[in-house]
């Protein structure tokens, strides 16, 4: 966790005002003759940014004494170069490699984007997932397995190009050099080990029916304890976890699994399913250690999109679907 704290000894704010603090265009003194300027947008923007980073913001203030703003952001220690930003952590590029074969001044900008996406830079073209070169027209070219994926002028276009490659499949073999489409190394749907943890038997049956249509036959668990026991016994590839379950809720289940995984070379993909679809709920899920978030109802389309996003299902729909 990263905690930021800012304290001032200014005018402070009345308690009645604090509850509206994060609303846009709000100021303690809204009169036209007020002493202090500003639009009243600053804190609402900060709140939005903190929410997007899955953090929390709290304000304490005493009138005529001052104000203290505290921000808590879920972060962990790591090598600076290996830290992907939250925004790009779901591209599916984390841990992949790229060669940058362009010179200064564009090199640092591309390097920064790669770091943002969790992609390591390497010098060996033979073992890199991507190469970035520059054409004679000064366009930047992204290639994958020797084949050109696309060109770009502005480096900010790089993430979407990288993502398009991820979605179409990156080979998972130890030799990262891509020579064939990823299909041959992807898991067949029938082989996916999935646990569906949902306490309401009707909802569980509905989700299981949708999954069967995608070719997946999940094991089911009716509460958090049951799910944890099944996880220990079966070590699934992926779990769909209802956040609110009896005996042990989805958040605690996630924490227990992540704790048990510590020191092991495994990472179960944990996807939350919840009837509450707010930013706060998503933040709580991610803070507990879940990888992603699905809101109820879980339609076949939603499940399909999520499983392809995490490469649980093939990028080619015809490979997995049963209709």
């Amino acid at each position, binding site marked *: 966790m990263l905690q930021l704290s800012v304290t001032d000894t200014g005018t402070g704010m009345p308690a009645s005002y604090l509850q509206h603090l994060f609303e846009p265009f709000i100021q303690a003194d809204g009169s036209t003759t007020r002493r202090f300027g500003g639009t009243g947008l600053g804190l609402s923007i900060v709140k939005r940014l903190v929410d997007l980073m899955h953090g929390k913001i709290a304000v304490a203030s005493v009138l005529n004494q001052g104000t203290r703003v505290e921000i808590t952001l879920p972060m962990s220690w790591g090598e600076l170069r290996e830290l992907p930003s939250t925004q790009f952590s779901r591209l599916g590029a984390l841990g992949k490699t790229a060669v940058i074969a362009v010179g200064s001044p564009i090199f640092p900008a591309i390097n920064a984007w790669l770091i943002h996406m969790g992609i390591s830079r390497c010098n060996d073209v033979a073992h890199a997932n991507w190469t970035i070169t520059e054409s004679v027209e000064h366009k930047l070219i992204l290639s994958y397995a020797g084949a050109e994926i696309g060109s770009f002028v502005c480096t900010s276009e790089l993430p979407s190009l990288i993502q398009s490659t991820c979605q179409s499949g990156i080979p998972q073999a130890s030799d990262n050099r891509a020579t064939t489409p990823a299909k041959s190394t992807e898991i067949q749907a029938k082989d996916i080990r999935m646990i569906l943890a949902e306490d309401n038997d009707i909802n569980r049956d*509905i989700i299981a029916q949708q999954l069967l249509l995608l070719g997946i036959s999940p094991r089911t668990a009716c509460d958090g304890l049951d799910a944890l026991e099944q996880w220990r016994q079966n070590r699934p590839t992926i779990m769909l976890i209802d956040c*609110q379950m009896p005996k042990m809720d989805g958040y605690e289940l996630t924490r227990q699994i992540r704790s048990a995984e510590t020191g092991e070379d495994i990472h179960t993909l944990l996807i939350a399913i919840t009837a509450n679809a707010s930013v706060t709920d998503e933040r709580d899920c991610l803070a507990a250690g879940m990888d992603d978030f699905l809101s109820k*109802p879980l339609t076949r389309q939603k499940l399909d999109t999520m499983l392809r996003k995490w490469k649980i299902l093939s990028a080619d729909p015809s490979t997995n679907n049963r209709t």
Partner: protein
Amino acid sequence: MHVDLTDLKSNIAPEVLSSILQRAIKQVKDDAELYQQAIHKADFALAAQLIHRMRGLALFLGVSESELAQVFALENELAARVPGCMETPLSIAVFTAQFDLFRMSFETALLNVSDSKRSC
């Protein structure tokens, strides 16, 4: 309240869907009784869980989020109550009435789609 089964109809066999609807109607009745007991015992956490469960079911059966906004507010209000804290008879009556309104609307919508499926 409107139960929209369009998505489920395209993915689930009619006989399975019919069975799901019958089970849903029974679950709503059963949970309504449990809710009454929970409210009168001031077990607001359980009452909130039962609403959450029923709301989740409604979402799965195609009820829109906007139609569930009021009962979601009730769920949050009950979840925020201090455990075991006694409420006034008026509060209990309000909690009961708000829930009944939701339960009856949902139950009626379920019965309607269930009947229309049978007549098809």
